[in-house]
């Protein structure tokens, strides 16, 4: 890995250099009742709108690479003949400016699922290969538990990763593209002092986590606690609203619907992100519902993230971003659910 250091003031130069493409970054969306700012990812046109010191955004950035709604194909009917048109929806490149390590790790996990098998998803792949990522080191919020999930640092899947160190930025350079962009700015080589400073900064960050999930032996424990009554307790609270999946950077389940134009000239297959907490997620043709109770649906969301995926990929599908817990109106959070499953151990 190549490292560079640059003055904080150069950040705006970097933004300017990258703004030949569409930049997506954290912006302020408003303030909550207590006056606390609410952040989300959006297209940023002005450097002043980029809020790099956001704690956590409400939603992940997935709408840009795994849209909530997406046209899979369009059919055109004409005189008894028909044509099919497929558009992967990667008409432009995106620069993601300010993704935290959790979200870049989330992309790496999605890569494994959506591109790493025999049927890679071209809709995702086209967008994924058309992005430039500037990672940004964070300060943990009270609901972040990425350190428990091993996603508090990231080793690949970005172009540039920046860590604030006093008046300067420490830059990890992953790609040739990033290297050439930095060539057009004022940077310097890091000294041994800088390396130490960087390591102190990251270990300081690690000490700031207040939220934790014990993942040791978790796949086995989940198997043992399949019948546990805690699932009922969480199921009673659950609104079956799908918010947790919609804000999650790694939830990728979807449904497909067909639509025909009123004049019968066109038809479309439309994909819509779905959630395993929704009442009809496991309903099959003929009307049988394999998971009619909210407790079972909620349980399976946890089983997919923390058990099934771990057994398949040796890592969890949860990156500990805390978004689902923040957004859940019923206050269902990953740390509390997992702790309740493990209760009685200590």
């Amino acid at each position: 890995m190549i490292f560079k250091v640059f003055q904080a003031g150069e950040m705006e130069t970097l933004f300017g250099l990258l703004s030949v493409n569409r930049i997506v970054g954290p912006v302020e969306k408003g303030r909550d009742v207590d006056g606390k700012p609410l952040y989300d990812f959006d297209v940023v046109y002005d450097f002043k709108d980029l809020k790099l010191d956001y704690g956590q955004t409400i939603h992940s950035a997935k709408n840009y690479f795994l849209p909530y709604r997406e046209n899979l194909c369009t059919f055109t009917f004409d005189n008894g003949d028909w044509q099919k048109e497929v558009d992967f929806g990667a008409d432009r490149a995106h620069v993601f400016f300010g993704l935290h390590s959790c979200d870049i790790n989330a992309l790496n996990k999605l890569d494994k699922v959506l591109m790493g098998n025999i049927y890679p998803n071209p809709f995702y792949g086209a967008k994924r290969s058309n992005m430039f990522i500037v990672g940004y080191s964070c300060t943990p919020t009270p609901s972040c538990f990425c350190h428990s999930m091993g996603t508090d640092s990231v080793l690949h899947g970005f172009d540039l990763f920046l860590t604030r160190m006093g008046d300067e930025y420490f830059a990890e350079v992953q790609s040739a593209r990033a290297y050439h962009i930095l060539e057009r700015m004022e940077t310097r080589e890091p000294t041994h002092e800088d390396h130490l400073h960087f390591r102190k900064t990251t270990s300081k960050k690690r000490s700031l986590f207040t939220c934790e999930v014990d993942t040791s032996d978790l796949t086995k424990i989940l198997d043992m606690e399949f019948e546990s009554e805690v699932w009922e307790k969480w199921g009673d609270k659950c609104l079956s609203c799908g918010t947790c999946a919609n804000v999650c950077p790694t939830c990728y389940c979807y449904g497909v619907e067909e639509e025909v134009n009123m004049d019968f000239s066109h038809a479309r297959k439309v994909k819509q992100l779905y959630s395993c907490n929704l009442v009809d997620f496991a309903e099959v043709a003929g009307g049988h519902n394999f998971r009619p109770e909210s407790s079972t649906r909620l349980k399976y969301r946890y089983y997919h993230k923390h058990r099934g995926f771990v057994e398949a990929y040796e890592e969890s599908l949860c990156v500990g971003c805390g978004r689902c817990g923040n957004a859940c109106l019923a206050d269902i959070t990953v740390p509390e659910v997992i702790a309740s499953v493990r209760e009685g151990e200590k």
Partner: protein
Amino acid sequence: MKTERTFLGVPIVKPKVGFFDLSSCEGCQLQMLNNEASLLDFLSLVEIVNFREGMKEKSDDYDIAFVEGSVTRADEEERLKIIRRNAGVVVALGSCACFGGVNQLKNRFNDLEWVKRQVYGDFPIETQEAKPISAFVKVDLEIYGCPIKKEEVEKIVTKLVLGQEITHPNYPVCMECKANENVCLFDLGEPCLGPVTRAGCDSWCPSNRMGCWGCRGPAPAANLKQLEKIAEQKNISKERLLDRLECFGGFGEAAREMRTKVEGGR
């Protein structure tokens, strides 16, 4: 002359449809006329033989009847039964027809005579409890919303004409609201019925920074008990919550129970 249309080689019949209104604001029908851009396409899909909001001609020969409004008078009951006899498919159009709608708010008062005097003064009219049309006739399809969402009706009617299965979203408004990346109204201190209300409106109200009033009625897995707890936790009074739950009639029994609990607790 009707030119026969086909879809994927299969001839498609253009059904005759009628729009009818009982007690309502006729806003749902107006919605249908609202978007001129797609009106002609809609007219190519069906043959409209009855539509007071849009034409003078009338006919009793129709396959599909869209009925807007709730039943609040005896003569409406009769009209509705005739419509049912004439039509192959009866569609309840909008929340008044589906749940009683805003009209059913008057049912909360024990003394309907008093209501009549308050509203109509010296010009009393005949009026009874407001009820959804399903209280009187068999309803084949319900289209929710106050008002209905034109795009949704167009999609449904297209499926009806093509003989495809018609399904409503079974998830609540939150699902659409989050997909629209809105800030949650609860974070802004406002109540919202999004967590318990059936989606389909593309989170119309929250996308305009207004909490949902539940006009589409309950989602199949609506967890009202939890919504009550959430409101309590966020210092939103039961009365404010009830205001919304009672507004369109969709939450019927559940809202009545909550009302009884609130009044009983006073």
